[in-house]
């Protein structure tokens, strides 16, 4: 039982990282990343390959995952600079598909659909059964650090510029803000966080395969952020844990329904999850922790003519 709770808490933390990543650009700058699973995969594969085939230490793998995720994010935003901003959504969706196809078909690099197994966990053999608890602490520490980082960004002048871009990019441009640079930076940072989440995932479960990175995970994270509250890092975190709670408690709930076949039970579970998500979107617009727009600082009179 304890192991199960530790496991769910760790998974919730990893989903939380992804939710923070999405919130940074969606809630922050109004950019839509339908390819979250792709950046998650890039990080997971970068770290897994580097630490298994390359025998690098785990921390180096994680660092590489951050760099690889951020780099992939830059490539994606820069390849869309000539496009209308709305189309970023479809390009990211395509990016995630391409990542998954490469992971499945370029066997020389990724071991194909076999996946990469035996990815080392930090001090795993020494810790034995305590591994899950220690890993949860690691994930929570990373989550806390990222949370503090994005909240600082959120409240800084930088975050205000991002929000200005979200509300009206043209006005921000006219106000002299380099909109493109801001967006590229924010997107790369967000992708780097997703990459880090991927690496943490890989070293936790010790196995990754292309099937892990289906669009379903992106959908889940969108639902978590929308349910928790867009535009507020705490909302994203709460949303991620609520989502995990929903996914897991649905499992126990359908066990109470008598006299249906296994496949009907599974269908009912998925159905229940989807219905609850629609209800949350409908009944709590803005999520359970809606965005608080800070009042604009009063323009000081001094220094003005």
């Amino acid at each position, binding site marked *: 039982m304890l192991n199960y709770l530790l496991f769910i808490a760790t998974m919730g933390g990893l989903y939380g990282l992804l939710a923070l990543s999405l919130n940074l650009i969606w809630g922050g700058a109004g950019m839509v990343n339908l390819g979250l699973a792709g950046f998650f995969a890039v990080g997971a594969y970068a770290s897994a390959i580097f630490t298994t085939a390359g025998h690098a230490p785990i921390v180096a793998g994680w660092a590489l995952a951050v760099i690889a995720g951020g780099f992939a994010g830059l490539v994606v935003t820069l390849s869309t600079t*000539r*496009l209308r901003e709305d189309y970023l959504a479809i390009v990211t969706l*395509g990016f995630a598909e391409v990542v998954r*196809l490469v992971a499945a078909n370029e066997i020389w690099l990724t071991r194909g659909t076999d996946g990469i197994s035996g990815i080392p966990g930090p001090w795993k053999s020494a810790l034995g059964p305590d591994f899950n608890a220690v890993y949860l602490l690691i994930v929570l520490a990373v989550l806390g650090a990222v949370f503090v980082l994005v909240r600082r960004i959120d409240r800084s002048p930088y975050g205000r510029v991002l929000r200005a871009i979200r509300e009206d990019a043209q006005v921000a441009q006219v106000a002299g803000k380099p909109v493109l640079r801001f967006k590229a930076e924010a997107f790369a940072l967000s992708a780097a966080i997703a990459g880090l989440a991927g690496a943490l995932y890989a070293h936790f479960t010790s196995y990754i395969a292309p099937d892990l990175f289906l669009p379903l995970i992106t959908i889940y994270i969108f639902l978590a952020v929308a349910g928790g509250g867009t535009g507020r890092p705490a909302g994203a975190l709460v949303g991620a844990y609520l989502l995990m709670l929903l996914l897991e408690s649905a499992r126990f709930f359908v066990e109470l329904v008598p006299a249906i076949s296994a496949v*009907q039970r599974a269908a009912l579970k*998925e159905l229940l999850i989807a219905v609850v998500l*629609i209800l949350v979107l409908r009944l709590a617009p803005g999520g359970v922790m809606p965005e608080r727009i800070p009042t604009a600082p009063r323009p000081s009179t001094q220094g003005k003519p």
Partner: protein
Amino acid sequence: MILLQALVNGMVSGTLLAVPAIGFTAMFAVLRFPNFSVSGIATLGAFAGYLAYSAGLQLAGALAAAFVVAGVVGLFLDRVAHLPLVKQGALPAAIASIASGLVLENVIRFGFGNDLRGFDRPIARDMHLGDIRVSPQQLETMGIALALMLAVFAALAFTRIGKAMRASADNPELAALKGIRPQRVAMIASFVGMGLVGIGGMLLGLDSSIDPLTGTRILLSIFAAAVLGGLGSPTGAVLGAWLIGIAEELSVLVVGSPYRTAVGFFAILIVLTLRPRGLLGERAY
């Protein structure tokens, strides 16, 4: 020669894809959000048509059943789950529509299980026109799809309601001033758009087989076709569907079938870079 054959194959599958893509793009034009529940609606249409066909209805009757059931359920979901969210923006509505698609998929799974089902229709060997071969059934389904497309375009061009739809897609405020009731137009767009998606699902099922994931398999292609053609443009959706169909078949010859979705997306990236509004999009939203 195999190149020409691949082009023909691409046209055939593109035409089938065009029907749901028109529905998707028409809904976008009026309702202003990408309705991803088309995955579930296409499956629903396929199952409704399958049940009607198994109950002894002719093909036309089964298609009508697919249209009506998909249209009614689509309209209901739009009213209950999606449209109330549009005022917060297109994205929340789009997210809710993904969840509705999952709901439909699992309702069907609950009722029918995962087993494959097929329309009991005769399959014939292909006809040969010179070196090119075409399948009589696929010609038939293609004919149905083309006839439907013509009907849709005629309705948009000549009927009052069609004109009202175009008007309110172009400029909702102006249309409202002219006495076009936006609510009614929206409902018709939901019903007809989803009806077309339902028929699209059934046409696909005629040719392959149906199960709870039928619509999910074509969701990306529908979306890609609509974006490529310019979201909101029915003619564009047809063109986009053909392009996607052909690109996917040609990709088999060039990079191999596993990378076909990637080829579709690169086509989109290139087209949108050169023509930011899509092939025929008047405005890009």
